[in-house]
């Protein structure tokens, strides 16, 4: 009996030591977690998550201070990716942080713009060009669709326009969609 216990204990010690050594010896130096989370976030910098940008939100997730379902632009897919990365459970998008919308860009109605520069200051990615008392316009290719320029505009001349599908951006659909109930055929 004692021998068996000793053998088992010895085995445990040896194997434990081997595992510990392996953990140190073959340690994988990965990217810091925040970077990995930040790479998944859509970088709209819209602040809908309650943090001032994607990086702060990523930091908060990494620290466990924020849930993974607070990013509407990232959508369900983003939550799935975060859940995979962090080994957490998938959660539907939290309603208080917003809803998933089609990808859009902001468009300035150039007739109405008074050139106040408030939107330029609000834009997190400097995608609006213009100067004081000059008409502003949005560089569509750089706009992330964060909508942060909408509230500061005193004349409400900015609107969000969904990006239309073109021949170039059109995607082939998943080959099968419709489900045929088995009962019909079986009957």
């Amino acid at each position, binding site marked *: 009996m004692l021998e068996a216990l000793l053998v088992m204990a010895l085995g445990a010690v040896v194997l434990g030591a081997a595992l510990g050594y392996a953990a140190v010896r073959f340690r994988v130096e990965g990217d810091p977690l925040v970077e990995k989370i*930040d790479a998944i*976030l*859509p*970088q*709209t*910098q819209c602040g809908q998550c309650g943090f001032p*940008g*994607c*990086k702060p939100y990523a930091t908060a997730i990494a620290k466990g201070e924020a849930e993974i379902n607070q990013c509407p632009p990232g959508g*369900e897919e983003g939550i799935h990716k975060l859940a995979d990365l962090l080994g957490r459970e998938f959660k539907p998008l939290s309603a208080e942080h917003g809803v*998933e*919308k*089609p990808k859009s860009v902001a468009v300035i109605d150039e007739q*109405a713009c*008074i*050139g*106040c520069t*408030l939107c330029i200051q609000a834009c*997190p*990615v*400097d*995608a609006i060009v213009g100067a*004081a*008392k000059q008409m502003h316009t949005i560089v569509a290719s*750089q706009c*992330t669709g964060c909508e942060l320029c909408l509230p500061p505009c*005193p*004349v409400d001349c900015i*609107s969000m326009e*969904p990006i239309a*599908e*073109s*021949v*170039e*951006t*059109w*995607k*082939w*659909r*998943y*080959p*099968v969609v419709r489900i045929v109930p088995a009962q019909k055929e079986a009957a």
Partner: protein
Amino acid sequence: MSVLQRLFGFHGGVKPDYHKDASTSLPIAVAPTPTFLVIPLHQSIGGPPRPLVKAGERVLKGQRIGGADGNASSAVHASASGTVVAVEMRLMPHTSGLSAMCVVIETDGRDEWVANQPFDYRSATPTQIRDYLRDAGVVGLGGAVFPTYLKLNAGKQGKLDTLVLNGAECEPFITCDDVLMRERAAAILKGAAIMREMLAAGKVLIGIEDNKPEAIAAMEAAARAANAAAADAAIEVVAVPTRYPAGGAKKLIRVLTGIEVPHGERSTDYGVQCFNVGTAYAIHEAIELGRPLISRIVTVAGNVKQARNYEVLFGTPMQDLIALCDKLPDSDRVIMGGPMMGLLMPGEDVPVVKATNCVLVGSKKLFPPPPPEMPCIRCGECAKACPADLQPFEMYWFSRAKIFGKAQEYNLFDCIECGCCAYVCPSRIPLVDYYRFAKSEIWAREVEKEAADVARERYEFRLLREEREKQEKAAKLAAKTAAGREKAAAAVAEAAKPAATPEEEAKKALIAAALERARAEKSLVHPENTADLTPEQQAEVSAIEARRAEIREMAKPQLRQDD
């Protein structure tokens, strides 16, 4: 046909029924000019050209209507003289059923050419020739429509061993290259000579599948004449075994030279370049006759009474061609291209474009609807048939499960979508559809990721800039206060208060003034608008609002369905 030429095999491939005889019994006919030409501006790979004409303008045949814009773009020309009636979105010859910018020309039947000046390529620099070909709109006519001028670059060594002309034409039904070679062999070889000179290529190998003996004979005769004229033996016609997809550029290069060009690499780095015979003909037309690319040979085949090849002006509606051939009553679809790789058209009224090598009319009898899909039993038939040596069932597995990273690990992007795997699959799985789906998803993600990276960079730069501006402001302020302290100690308290306050106030005042001005302007321009909102006005405003809301609502479920 050289006996000495050693041929190389390629793995896989299939032998479908060819159905080629129907359309080769008659010579090429010129399709009549339609009343309205709808010419898409974007007809080739690369950036969309910018429109050069406006509605109401008169254009001549061969006049440039779309200018090459940016990298890898290629020009587009009016295919007949007439008046531009619109530059607008029209249905494209694309499976998506989406529209794109097109120039619509009402033809005047006079067929007035712009002044055709042959291009003296011998006294031009390579760059000048390439620019000329770009502006002549010459693109690959094999189906991939890659701008030809980009391929006429000899690469690192400055010279090539082999120029391959692709006359294999392996897809069933399509015979446009076949008849072109039969009837215009000499012109093809003249174009090839220009290419050979530009690429400093040693020899010219013309690969033709051995099911086209007439084309081989015609090309051989022309090659003998050309070789005799040049007193060398550089041009050689090679009959290659008939096996789909021997006409894929990389497969043909492999068959003729034994060289395998990997995906994503230039074949010129391996000393070889490949062009379609139609492209060689187009180069001859552009350089020696000064005619830009405005037409091509199109096979009209399938469920029609008399299949035939036509020389068709770009922008001609496909239904006109189909009418020429007498569509049979049970036809149910139009396909651009062949039955293996062709694209289903959203309608018969889409225009013929540079990529249109064949207008294939289909019916349920000719192309029976696929039987229900069964599970994959991993029989490996697809791997046996794959000419790219891929493992199609593994790619299918991961594409179906939307595990795109894994699909890419199995070299999804080496897939040329030739359809051999789906052709042989006993479970009748639409394999290629899964690859197309996975590829476009991966592309979309790639684009999204790039956009996100740019946004992150710009956001971080902005934070940096704001920080720097803050520091600069603080430094300025500190300097100011230091200066002020010397002047008057009493003013310290006031000066220490951020100088921004008066600035901000000034700004606010400015904004208020601007607002006032804007309001005043508005009321000046539309006095009735603000003064008394008429019911019509109100209705209009609310209609616009409603439409906006509707568009947003409409966009939402669509996106969800796609998920």
